[in-house]
């Protein structure tokens, strides 16, 4: 049973009633970024009009107000992720910056020559490159968990990859290409048995499934605001207090210090130690607004509804001759990658665009995965709770037309 009222929800997202090439926009590129509800945009506007003053250092009224809003936003994020400790929430520019922060600071504190980092074959470039940079810097090795033909990680191999040289595991909660929901809770348990911490890249998970960092027992969990109906340029690093206290700051500057002399600087406490410079307090409050919107709609209701949409779209896609779905894991989020015969994904994407349908094509910033699959890329349709079955019908109709033109 779903309680999602798409009509009501769509009214909250003004962009969804726009026309593209004179056709109603059908937005199926939610894996790349999501659209924003009016309340989020209004929060940004209101922030700049009525709440703008630099935080944490002003004695004046507005600064106090802005500081309260920023810290309230931190509390909202903490509640959303299920941690009782708000100082475990660090605001970053996004998932990418959060991973880079951990790769740098954790690397400085705990890694040395010969050590190993474990990632998976289905990682986004942002969960590959920072670790490669660390490996280069420290002369370490990157080990990669393979997957089966359905796009599920080989957990037995993962277990074998873990050894006394493994310093950290960093893995996607949900694959941005295949939609696979990885069994991160089990993987964390396995790693913890060997005292290895785990970072979970939740960029594709938080908008779609319930995440509880305590239940997962994740050591680090990261996500981006813009993929969960919030603004661009703001994201979150959750880290267990013991780890965040044990690693050095990532960037130096204002806000992150306790005392500064030319001889020595002592660092501020958590979370400020990792928030050098003026934080994006407008972004953080708008992100909190987005999270509240999601909570109000109901994350389980969203998950159920999107699951229904994904099943329906999969079923309808398979009506089309020579369609190949890339990623058929048992546990899947609302992402469908596909190919049709030998048609290049770029051609399908360009023609769908002309019919008002936004999908993503290409390698989706996961080149190693696409190379492993031996394909030129995929067409990816990714759904959000404001999408409808009717849109899927229109998409299938358009796809049939496009395929006929290209065959």
């Amino acid at each position, binding site marked *: 049973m779903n309680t999602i009222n798409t009509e009501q929800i769509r009214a909250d997202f003004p962009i969804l009633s726009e026309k593209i*090439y004179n056709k109603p926009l059908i937005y199926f590129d939610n894996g790349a970024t999501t659209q924003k509800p009016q309340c989020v945009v209004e929060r940004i506007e209101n922030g700049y009009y009525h709440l703008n003053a630099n935080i944490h250092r002003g004695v004046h009224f507005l600064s106090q107000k802005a500081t309260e809003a920023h810290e309230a936003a931190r509390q909202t994020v903490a509640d959303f992720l299920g941690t009782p400790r708000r100082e475990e929430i660090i605001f970053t520019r996004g998932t990418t910056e959060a991973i880079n922060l951990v790769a740098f600071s954790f690397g400085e504190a705990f890694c040395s020559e010969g050590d190993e980092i474990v990632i998976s074959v289905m990682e986004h470039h942002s969960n590959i490159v920072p670790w490669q940079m660390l490996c280069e810097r420290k002369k370490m090795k990157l080990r990669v968990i393979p997957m089966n033909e359905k796009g599920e990680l080989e957990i037995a191999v993962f277990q074998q990859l873990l050894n006394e040289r493994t310093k950290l595991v960093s893995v996607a909660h949900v694959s941005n290409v295949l939609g696979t929901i990885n069994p991160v809770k089990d993987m964390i348990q396995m790693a913890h048995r060997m005292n290895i911490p785990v970072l979970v890249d939740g960029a594709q998970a938080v908008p779609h499934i319930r995440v509880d960092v305590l239940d997962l027992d994740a050591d680090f969990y990261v996500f981006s605001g813009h993929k969960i109906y919030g603004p661009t340029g703001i994201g979150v690093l959750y880290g267990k207090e013991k780890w965040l206290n044990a690693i050095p700051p990532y960037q130096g500057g204002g806000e992150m210090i306790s005392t500064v002399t030319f001889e020595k600087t002592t660092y501020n406490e958590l979370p400020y130690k990792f928030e050098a410079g003026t934080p994006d307090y407008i972004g953080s409050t708008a992100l909190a607004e987005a999270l509240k919107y999601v909570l109000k709609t109901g994350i389980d209701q969203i998950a159920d509804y999107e699951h229904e949409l994904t099943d329906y779209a999969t079923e309808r896609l398979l009506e089309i001759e020579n369609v190949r779905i890339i990623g058929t894991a048992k546990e899947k989020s609302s992402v469908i990658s596909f190919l049709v015969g030998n*048609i*290049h*994904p*770029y*051609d399908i994407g*360009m*023609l769908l665009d*002309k*019919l008002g349908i936004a999908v993503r*094509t*290409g*390698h989706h910033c996961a080149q190693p995965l696409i190379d492993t699959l031996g394909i*030129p*890329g995929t067409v990816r349709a990714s759904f959000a709770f404001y999408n409808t079955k009717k849109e899927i019908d229109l998409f299938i109709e358009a796809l049939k*037309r496009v395929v006929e*033109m*290209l065959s």
Partner: protein
Amino acid sequence: MTIREIQDEIIEEFSQFDDWMDKYALLIDLGNSLEPIDEKYKTPQNIIEGCQSRVWLNAEMNNGIVTYQGESDAILVKGIVSMLIKVMSGHTPDEILENDLYFIDRIGLKEHLSPTRSNGLVAMVKQMKMYALAFKAKNN
């Protein structure tokens, strides 16, 4: 025909269609009619790697005239490659270097050449001019 005349002819051909899908149907036809590149030229050196699709390009000069061969794995890109070759092939390096390419913009397919599209076409146009420049230098 001059580079200008060929471009004008293409613009004329596309101007009969208002609907995007008709324009793209013509582009697909052009892509299908592109003579396949000689397998021996489909080398890693001749590949222009784009984010989305790949383009191969080869150029030769005989008696002062440059001819290009090209291909792509995406049919729409191939259609544009076919037009670029039609426009640029069969001219002297000077003619190729002196003339602006305005037809893609005029037929409304500029988005394929936008740098953010990264389908290898921007790099291809640059590479075509580079070949002309290299042949010119060689001639002198």
